[in-house]
C-alpha cells in the first residue's frame, strides 16, 4: 500500500512545534520521501495553542489530510483540542507527567518528554527534540537521518549543543520503541536521496524566484503572512546585491519600488490584503506612469485585521479591481510552490514587457507551508526586460516621447541618466511627452493605449490546468491559487468512486483567458466553484468573463485551508 502518514505536533507557541515538523520534513525529504507541512498557529509569540501537521508520502504531497495518524501533544491543551481529530487507531504520544493526562487506550503512549530532555542534559527546552525522536519511532523510521540533521543544524552552536540535541532525540526514540514493543509499526524504509530535491515554503519559493528573476530592489513593511518573503530576500541581499529598504508603511513601500523601477531596476514589494489597501493608490500610479512593478500578496482572512495568522482566498475581487479608473494589471495565483517560484519570473517579465503592475496572489496556507519538490530550475527563468531604448543619442537634451502611441499599448522607454534625452513620467493624464494635458483626443488615446495592454496580457495568459487532462466529465471543480492540490486530490477520490469529476485550475486569474475555455469545461458538465471565501469571488469572475454558469459553490471561510476529503464530501452532498 502506498505510504500516506500524517503526524500532528501540538503545543503552545514557543514550545518548538514548528521546529519538530521542520526537522521531520528535512529528514523525509532527504531520504526518498515527500512531505507537506502545514502550520496552524495563533497570532501570539508565547502560549495559546498551535500545531504543525506533516504528511509523508512516496509521491509529491498535494494537500493536507483532515485526520493525523500520530498526534504528539507537547501540552494538555493539545490533547483537549486535537485528540478528536486523530484517525481511528491513531497513536497519541503525550507527557503524562506534565499534562496529568492518563489513558487506558493501548495506542496512547505516555512519554516523560521533559524529564527525558532534562536527564540527558538538554533541559526542558529540548522536550520537542525528544518528541521528534519519538515521532520517528512511532512510524517505524530510522533514527540516524535525524541525528545527521541535528548535527548539521546545530554545528555552529558548538559540540555540546549538538550532543544534547542528539541525546534528546535518541532518548525519545528509544523510549517510544520500548513502548511500541508489543505493536511495532509498519516500517517506513529509507529511500535514496535525490539530487535537486528541496523542502520549500511558498514564501521561500517566491523570494528565491524573485532573486533568480534579477530582483535588485525590495521595499516592504512586515505583515503576516508575507513577512517571510522580505526576510528571505534580506538574508540573500548581500550575496546578490539587492537593496532592501524597511519602509515606514506600505504606501512608501510601493512608491519606493516604483521609484527604483523608474530608475531602471527590477523591484518589488510584498504584503497582505490590509497592507495592499494602503498600496492601492500607488498601484494606480504604476498603471498611469506605465512603470513595471511586482507586488506579492499573501492573503489572510479580512476585513480589517481579520485572522492574522490564518488563510483565505478572500482578496481576489479586491486585487482585480483595486484602484480608481481603468488601468491594466495582471494577477497570477500560483497553485503550489513550483508555480510560485516560476510565477515570479513570469511576473517580472510581464511587468517589464507591458510596463504595468503585476500581482502575485498567494495566501497564508501556500506561503507558510513547506512542500518537498523535485527541484526548481533557475535556468528556466528567462529575463525579458521589454522595450528599453538604450541607444538614444542626441546633440542636446531633448524630450523623449515616453508615451508614444503604439497599437500594442507599449511604448519604448529610456532610463533616466542612461540616455542623452530626458523623460517625463506623470500621474496626471499626459501627452506623449509626459506633460500634463486635459485635451480630449489625447485623453481618449492614452486610455486606449494603456488598456490595450490588458488584451495583450490576456492573449498570452497560461490556460488552466485540467486534471485528469483529457477524460470526459460530468462535474468540473473550478479552482484557483493554493487550493490546486486539494481540488486535484478530491477529484481522484471522487473518480475512485466512479464520480466523473475533473479539476479546472487557473493560475493566471487576471486578465482571464476566454479562448478555449468552453472546450475545456465540456458541453454538458456542471461547474462547481471551490474556493476559500464567502462569495465565490473567482466563480463570479469566471462566470462574468466566460459566460459559463457556475451552478454550485463549495466555499470555506473559517480561516483553515481546504482539504481533499471535505471537498469530496461536499461534492457528494450536492449529487
Amino acid at each position, binding site marked *: 500500500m502506498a505510504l500516506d502518514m500524517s503526524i500532528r505536533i501540538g503545543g503552545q507557541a514557543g514550545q518548538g512545534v514548528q521546529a519538530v515538523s521542520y526537522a521531520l520534513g528535512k529528514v523525509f525529504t532527504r531520504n526518498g520521501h515527500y512531505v507537506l507541512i502545514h502550520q496552524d498557529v495563533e497570532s501570539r509569540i508565547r502560549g495559546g495553542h498551535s500545531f504543525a501537521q506533516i504528511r509523508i508520502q512516496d509521491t509529491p504531497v498535494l494537500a493536507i489530510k483532515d485526520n493525523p495518524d500520530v498526534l504528539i501533544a507537547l501540552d494538555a491543551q493539545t490533547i483537549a483540542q486535537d485528540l478528536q481529530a486523530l484517525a481511528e487507531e491513531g497513536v497519541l504520544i503525550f507527557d503524562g507527567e506534565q499534562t496529568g493526562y492518563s489513558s487506558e487506550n493501548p495506542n496512547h503512549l505516555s512519554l516523560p518528554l521533559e524529564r527525558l530532555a532534562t536527564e540527558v542534559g538538554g533541559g526542558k527546552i529540548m522536550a520537542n527534540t525528544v518528541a521528534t525522536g519519538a515521532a520517528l519511532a512511532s512510524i517505524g523510521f530510522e533514527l540516524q537521518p535525524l541525528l545527521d540533521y541535528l548535527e548539521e543544524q546545530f554545528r555552529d552552536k558548538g559540540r555540546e549543543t549538538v550532543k544534547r540535541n542528539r541525546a534528546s532525540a535518541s532518548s525519545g526514540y528509544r523510549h517510544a520503541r520500548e513502548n511500541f514493543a508489543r505493536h511495532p509499526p509498519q516500517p517506513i524504509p529509507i529511500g535514496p536521496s535525490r539530487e535537486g530535491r528541496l523542502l520549500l515554503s511558498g514564501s521561500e519559493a517566491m523570494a528565491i524566484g524573485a532573486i533568480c528573476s534579477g530582483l535588485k530592489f525590495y521595499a516592504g513593511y512586515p505583515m503576516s503572512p508575507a513577512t517571510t518573503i522580505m526576510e528571505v530576500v534580506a538574508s540573500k541581499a548581500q550575496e546578490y546585491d539587492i537593496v532592501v529598504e524597511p519602509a515606514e508603511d506600505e504606501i512608501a513601500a510601493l512608491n*519606493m519600488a516604483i521609484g527604483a523601477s523608474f530608475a531602471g531596476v527590477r523591484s518589488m514589494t510584498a504584503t497582505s490584503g490590509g497592507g495592499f489597501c494602503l498600496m492601492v493608490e500607488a498601484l494606480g500610479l504604476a498603471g498611469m506612469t506605465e512603470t513595471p512593478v511586482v507586488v506579492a500578496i499573501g492573503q489572510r482572512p479580512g476585513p480589517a485585521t481579520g485572522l492574522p495568522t490564518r488563510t483565505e482566498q478572500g482578496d481576489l475581487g479586491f486585487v482585480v479591481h483595486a484602484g480608481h479608473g481603468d488601468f491594466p494589471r495582471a494577477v497570477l495565483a500560483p497553485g503550489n510552490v513550483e508555480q510560485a517560484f516560476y510565477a515570479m519570473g513570469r511576473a517580472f517579465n510581464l511587468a517589464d514587457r507591458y510596463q504595468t503592475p503585476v500581482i502575485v496572489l498567494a495566501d497564508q496556507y501556500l506561503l507558510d507551508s513547506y512542500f518537498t519538490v523535485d527541484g526548481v530550475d533557475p535556468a528556466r527563468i528567462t529575463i525579458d526586460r521589454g522595450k528599453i531604448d538604450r541607444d538614444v543619442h542626441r546633440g542636446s537634451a531633448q524630450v523623449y516621447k515616453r508615451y508614444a502611441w503604439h497599437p500594442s499599448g507599449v511604448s519604448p522607454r529610456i532610463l*533616466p541618466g542612461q540616455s542623452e534625452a530626458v523623460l517625463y513620467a506623470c500621474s496626471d493624464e499626459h501627452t506623449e511627452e509626459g506633460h500634463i494635458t486635459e485635451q480630449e483626443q489625447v485623453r481618449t488615446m492614452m486610455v486606449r493605449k494603456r488598456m490595450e495592454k490588458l488584451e495583450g496580457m490576456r492573449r498570452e495568459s497560461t490556460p488552466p490546468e485540467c486534471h485528469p487532462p483529457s477524460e470526459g466529465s460530468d462535474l468540473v471543480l473550478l479552482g484557483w491559487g493554493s487550493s490546486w492540490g486539494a481540488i486535484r486530490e478530491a477529484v481522484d477520490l471522487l473518480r475512485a468512486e466512479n464520480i466523473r469529476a475533473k479539476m479546472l485550475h487557473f493560475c493566471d486569474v487576471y486578465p482571464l483567458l476566454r479562448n478555449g475555455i468552453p472546450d475545456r469545461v465540456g458541453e454538458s458538465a456542471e461547474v462547481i466553484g471551490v474556493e476559500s471565501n464567502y462569495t465565490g469571488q473567482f466563480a463570479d469572475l469566471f462566470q462574468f468573463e466566460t459566460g459559463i454558469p457556475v451552478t454550485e459553490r463549495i466555499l470555506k471561510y473559517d480561516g483553515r485551508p481546504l482539504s481533499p476529503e471535505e471537498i469530496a464530501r461536499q461534492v457528494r452532498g450536492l449529487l
Partner: protein
Amino acid sequence: MVSLEDYESKDPIAWCPGCGNFSLLSALKEALVGLGKKPKEIVMVSGIGQASKTPHYLMCNTFNGLHGRTLPVATGLKLANHELTVLAEGGDGDGYAEGGNHFIHAMRRNVDITYLVHNNQIYGLTKGQTSPTSEMGYVSKTTPWGSPNPPENPLLLAIASDCSFVARGFTGDVAHLRQLIKEGVRNRGFSFIDILQPCVSFNRVNTFQWYKSRVYKIDDTEAYDPSDRMTAFGRAQEWGERIPIGLLYRSVRPTRDEQEPAIRTSSLVKQPLATTSFPKLLEAFK
C-alpha cells in the same frame, strides 16, 4: 558648458501671474546651471499641487507622482541609481500633510536627496483651503471660523530629526535662494529647504509684503554656526516679527546610499541582471 537654455522647457506654464513659483523656478534653474549639472543627470520627483508642476517647466528627467508621495519615489530612485542628482519638490500640503510620515523617515534615512518645499501656508491648486502651515485662526473655505489648529513647524521637526541640511529660503530673494539650493544639492545627505512662497491668489494674510518686511538672513549681521543644534532649535522657533532665512542646521552623518553594500562597487542599474547560475541559493533548502 551648461547654460540656462539647456533647461528651457516648452511646456506652457499653468501658474497664476505674479506667483512666487516663477522666482523659485529661476533660482532652481540658475542653481543647476551653476552646479554644472546636465539635464540628463537630474531627476526631479514631484507630487501634486501647483508646486509639483515645477519639473514640467524645466528640461530634466521627471517623475511627477502622487500627492505626498515624492520622497518614497525619490528614495527608491536614488538607491537604484545613486549617480543621478535627485531633487524632490512639492508644496506644504504635499510634504507636511499628506506626506508627513515620509518626510520624517526620509530625514532619518538620510538618502542623498534635495527636498524643496514651496510653503505658501495654503492649498493653492484646490483654491484656497487651510493647510498644516496655515496660522491658527486663519479663515478659509474649510475653516470659515478660523483654523482651530496651530501650524506645524517643519524646521523644528527637521532639526529634531537630525536632518542633514535644514534651510529656509524666500522667493523674494532669488540670489539667496539660488545659493541655498546649490548648497543643498552639494550637501551629501538629505537636504531640506522650506521656501516661503506667497500665494498671490488666495493667501491674503501672508503676502509678499508680509514676508518681505519680516525675513532676515540668519548670518547677515553676526556669525551663525549651523552645527549648533540647540541654537538651531531656538532660531527655528522664531516666527512673527522676525523670520530667519538661510541654513539653520547642518548635521554631518553617513548617508543611506553611502552605507548600502549592494551599491558599493556600482549602481544597481548598472549591475548585470541575474545570471542563470545560482548554485548556492538553493543549498539551504536541500
